[in-house]
């Protein structure tokens, strides 16, 4: 009963084994990939472990407070140095081991040649609610 974020990167993660850009896949391979992701989410909903899932557009902008009375600053041209998030899935599972198992399955989504991508997914635990017992200094 702990929530984890599975982060999928466009950039910033170590390279996948089957590291072919998606625009060089066949349309069928893309369909198979999308189908795999949808089936995965549907399966997690059935097992009662699904919380949320969203994909993000590849282009992001860094924004910064520009000072009193000035517009915010955006960084525009340095996009190539950034870690880019492709999307996320949030799961609610009974153990860390189960979260790792599911991240492994998601990383096996088919890519070019119908072979698993073996991409690196980042697994991050959510902070949970403080427990009432357990700790003397509460």
């Amino acid at each position: 009963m702990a929530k984890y974020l599975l982060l999928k990167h466009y950039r910033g993660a170590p390279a996948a084994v089957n590291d072919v850009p998606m625009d060089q896949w066949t349309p069928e391979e893309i369909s198979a990939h999308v189908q795999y992701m949808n089936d995965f989410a549907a399966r997690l909903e059935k097992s009662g472990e699904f919380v949320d899932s969203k994909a993000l557009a590849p282009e992001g902008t860094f924004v910064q407070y520009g000072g009193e009375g000035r517009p915010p600053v955006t960084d525009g041209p340095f996009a190539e140095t950034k870690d880019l998030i492709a999307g996320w899935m949030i799961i609610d599972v009974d153990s860390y081991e189960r979260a790792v198992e599911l991240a492994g399955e998601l990383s096996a989504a088919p890519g070019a040649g119908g072979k698993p991508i073996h991409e690196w997914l980042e697994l991050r635990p959510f902070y949970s609610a403080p427990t009432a017992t357990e700790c003397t200094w509460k």
Partner: protein
Amino acid sequence: MNEALLRSLTPNVLGILVRRGADFAAAEDAVQDALIEAVRVWPADPPRDAKGWLVTVAWRKFLDATRADTARRRREDLVDEEQAPGPAPSADDTLQLYFLCAHPSLTPSSAVALTLRAVGGLTTRQIAQAYLVPEATMAQRISRAKRTVSDVRFDQPGDVATVLRVLYLVFNEGYSGDVDLAAEAIRLTRQLAAVIDHPEVAGLLALMLLHHARRAARTAPDGSLVPLAEQDRGRWDTTLIAEGVEILQAALARDRLGEFQAQAAVAALHADAPTAEETDWVQIVEWYDELAGLTDNPVVRLNRAVAVGEADGPRAGLAALAALDDSLPRHTAVAAYLHERDGDLTTAARLYAEAAQKAPNLAERNHLTRQAARLNTRRPR
């Protein structure tokens, strides 16, 4: 409409249906239908016997659903033959339901969800809100759980320990949405304690009451954590504390010590102290020794080190801590605290900051970061 009454009757009614031969999942659906009917009908036409009314309506709903399902005709015949209502031994029914919902074949989260739904009478939406997951996910979790236990024979004796573990999980979950899970866990444990005579059930109930009694004082209005020593003891609920202590003493008198009783004893000693300084740490260390004999849970040994630090001084606490695996959750936080008490502020500040990185929740992280900052701002940079 008395929602509390409805919810307290739920496990009873469900238990009676299942004992009469209804399949668990179908019975659960029928009881939910009956509850909806009650919410609709009772305000204008309150029944004299609420439980009898619910049993009658739920049973009718169950028969309707069964009859409508031609594939189940065989079982319908079976059920019609078996039907011999009469007064039911309701205590046993309720107890069996607790065992079923906490059955070892279920994962912890499924057992919790099923318990809240079938025993607690909460709606799927309420449970989903409390656990911050979509309603569809929670509905699937519950229906999977129901399928898992549908083959479990209802008359098998269950294991009280598994039931207590589930209730303990519910209690520790905090609260969100429109259901206070700690209060719900207390309600269910009270109900369990009323139908089963077991010192550990009493122990868990006492533990919950003693912790719940301090809840208002445990966090500041901004949500930040207030450590035990700094809590405003005037805000502790003395009625709950008195009840918890009384229940605990009766349980301890039976001389069948278990983990929950020992934990409750520690909580009672904290609750009993008029000021933090007057806490009986020597006795607390003794209870942690008892606990360590009952369980190999490393959290117990860590908490014991804290108590040793208070009873025999920070050096003794650090010595006790040195014997433990430093990868334990909160090990660093305890080390930071003991080093501060020992006067080594530099080490304490570094360890507080390190402990903050490993904190399991936001309130603790912020608390530990504040401790580090407090010590850092005292020293020249």
